[in-house]
């Protein structure tokens, strides 16, 4: 087990073939990985936590649960609400912060506060030649040189193996309320969420699950009460909402939304990012699917029904995304499907050339997570 950045650098420099970078191994997304395992779980521990500066630095293999526990003791959290893939994917293992960053994994609150990439202040990584590189730091504003922090976030380990990440953390909210509107179809639900997000009332979750539209408001108690009342007045034309105020009930609801647990028993699941106004039209005419929405309708979770033609659906989704703008990603599927289709939205040639060029610079031998994304 590698326990230091130096170990990782040496392992990569000495590698003679492809390496699979593994955090907790809970998220087998992308083409089935090839090569020898390069586990990062031994590279673990929070190295700096300054609650007064809202900053936390951790080694890449640190369990997300350990970070959440340390933060909770100071009444803080990772505001971008990273998804735990285990239920959906049927995997076990321990999700790590490095893998969250590598996948730019963000949950429902992304619509209000930003994605993982927006909270990532700095990285250390080992590139494909075994060279250690750092970028960014641990301050809130930093324009010193190029922002490789963002480039590494969401690169799925194809440009380097992350060894340390520095994150902006946020205080927890005093309280929250969730409004539930029942019986809206996709178009009505998106209209409702767009109306809610277009108010000054700072909605921090806007999702549609199993036919229910959910809106979350968080903050100080007086403020939440005020905004809940005002928001419902503005949304009166969409019907009456049920007010969910119990903390545990809300936590269960939003954790399930975040982790896409409704589709845990489905064999094939996709994730689509698009403009909310395109959501309703996007799924029209594609048979054999069920759809949940997040991010005010800008994120679709799509599951194949039993007996559907997975490959045909996959191509329909990526074709539709190419046409409307946006991208469709295969998140869960049997190995045969994952091997047969492009997991990530294919890029137009000029963009693909830039991607390929960056990969060639950061991993000239093409050995890191080969085929996963690039």
């Amino acid at each position, binding site marked *: 087990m590698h326990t230091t950045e130096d170990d990782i650098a040496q392992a990569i420099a000495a590698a003679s073939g492809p390496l699979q970078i593994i955090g907790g191994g809970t998220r087998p997304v992308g083409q089935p990985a090839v090569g020898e395992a390069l586990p990062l779980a031994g590279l673990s521990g929070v190295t700096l936590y300054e609650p007064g*500066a809202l900053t936390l630095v951790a080694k890449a293999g640190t369990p997300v649960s350990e970070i959440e526990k340390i933060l909770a003791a100071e009444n803080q959290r990772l505001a971008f609400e990273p998804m735990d893939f285990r239920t959906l994917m049927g995997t076990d293992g321990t999700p790590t912060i490095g893998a969250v960053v590598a996948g730019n994994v963000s949950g429902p609150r992304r619509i209000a506060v930003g994605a993982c*990439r927006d909270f990532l202040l700095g990285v250390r990584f080992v590139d494909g030649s075994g060279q250690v590189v750092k970028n960014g730091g641990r*301050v809130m504003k930093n324009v010193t*040189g190029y*922002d490789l922090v963002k480039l590494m976030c969401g690169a799925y380990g194809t440009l380097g193996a992350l060894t340390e990440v520095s994150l902006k953390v946020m205080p927890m909210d005093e309280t929250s309320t969730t409004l539930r509107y029942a019986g809206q179809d996709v178009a009505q639900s998106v209209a409702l969420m767009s109306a809610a997000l277009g108010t*000054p009332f700072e909605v921090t979750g806007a999702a549609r699950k199993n036919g229910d539209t959910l809106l979350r408001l968080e903050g100080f108690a007086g403020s939440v009460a005020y905004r809940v009342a005002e928001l419902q007045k503005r949304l009166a034309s969409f019907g009456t909402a049920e007010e969910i105020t119990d903390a545990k009930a809300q936590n269960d609801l939003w954790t399930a939304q975040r982790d896409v647990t409704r589709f845990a028993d489905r064999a094939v699941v996709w994730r689509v990012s698009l403009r*909310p106004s395109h959501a309703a039209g996007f799924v029209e005419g594609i048979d054999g699917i069920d759809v949940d929405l997040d991010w005010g309708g*800008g994120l679709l979770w799509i599951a194949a029904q039993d007996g559907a033609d997975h490959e045909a659906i996959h191509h329909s989704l990526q074709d539709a995304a190419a046409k409307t703008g946006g991208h469709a*990603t295969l998140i869960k599927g049997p190995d045969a499907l994952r091997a047969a289709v492009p997991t990530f939205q294919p890029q137009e040639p000029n*963009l693909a050339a830039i991607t390929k060029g960056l990969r060639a610079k950061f991993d000239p031998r093409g050995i890191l997570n080969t085929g996963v994304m690039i």
Partner: protein
Amino acid sequence: MDMPTPDASIIARKSTIVERLQSVLPHDAVIHDERETRAYECDGLAAYKCPPLCAVLPSSTQEVAAVMKVCHEMGVPVVPRGSGTSLAGGAMPTADAVILGVARLNDVLETSYEDRIIRVQSGRTNLSVTGAVETDGFFYAPDPSSQLACAIAGNIAMNSGGAHCLKYGVTTNNLLGVTLVQMDGTIVEIGGGHLDAGGLDLLGVICGSEGQLGVVTEATLRILHKPEGARPILMGFDSAEAAGTCVSDIIKAGVLPVAIEYMDRMCIEVCEAHAGAGYPLCEALLIIEVEGSPAEIDEQLAVIKDIAAKQNPNTMREAANAEEAGRIWLGRKSAFGAMGQINDYMCLDGTVPVNELPNVLRRIGELSKEHGLDVGNVFHAGDGNMHPLILYNANTPGDLERCEALGEEILKLCVEYGGCLTGEHGVGIEKRDLMLYQYDPADLEAQMAVKDVFDPAWLLNPSKVFPLATSAARRDGKQAA
């Protein structure tokens, strides 16, 4: 400030180059008369000047691509320019470079309140983006203090911030898509109206790349509904430590003010003399602004006042109405102008962890005494983004050099305390040669590798960001990209 020797062979070909550019642009879009190119000789870092070979003002993405293709073929460097308000020399030309100005690209292309986005051409000014949506209650959040003049293209190039980014983030957090023209004229679309552009986060690395990876001609930006209201509170403290602790405690408490601004005694005194805003004459002053309905503002300010009380403030003045709010902001907003009236100054923008503010301020005070130059501090305290203003006299021989030497010490200090050289102004030419204090050669090599991919010949704004010695081989074409 060293700049590379201009390529004499390019200067010798000026008339041919101008002719080629005139063949792809309207005649009035190519500026080559020496009396007129002088308008482009510097940006907001006005201590350094150099007229360009010529300047072009294309009106469309296609015209930008045509210009780039010509310059690429002829091996001529291109320096992109937004509105020229950069404080770091990001848009400063060299004598062998073509300035590509985006001033004629200023249309709004699409607005969608349902998707909460606006798509604009990149020459549009920051404030006029908000101007296009404010009658419908929306705004574009990043608000650099030059927002009346600065262009979105420059905001993206420098990843600009502003006073309100504590709550709303900087440019990169509000940018969803761009049309980018590469040095060889290739046009690429990255991202769009959806969140998190697909594939590698190219948008993230383009934003803040100081015009070295491509020319952004169009941008999709996130817009938000305006808050119901806002109210500032002014607090005076007897020490930097007390004010610094107050800032850190507020941030920790879960209140998210839109702005926490800090002024030290020197700035308070100068601003009082200039604007008469009624500030208390004390060691440190904070202006904290919160947003929401009147009741929500009361709730937040109650939390803030409780926290501040623990640091024994000598003044605590909450704005009772718009006029009082205006007076609280008056001094802060006139700070730079007021300082400029008493002397020339250099404005740095190193950023430090918020909890280190008191230590860094104390050390800046010591350095100021050692170097014999006054330093005033007025800055965005909530995110640790300092703005030390070093006062000097441009007419005193040697003063600029002394000022730069002190500036260098202050920026090293920021790095030493876990911070960075620049929080929102950019590296440009100003901090280029300090990059090795923050980054190792391998770190810079990785950054330069990105430029190698986008601009293999290093023709786009080549003498910026990286120490000249570090980028020399690439700029001279001696390193195969």
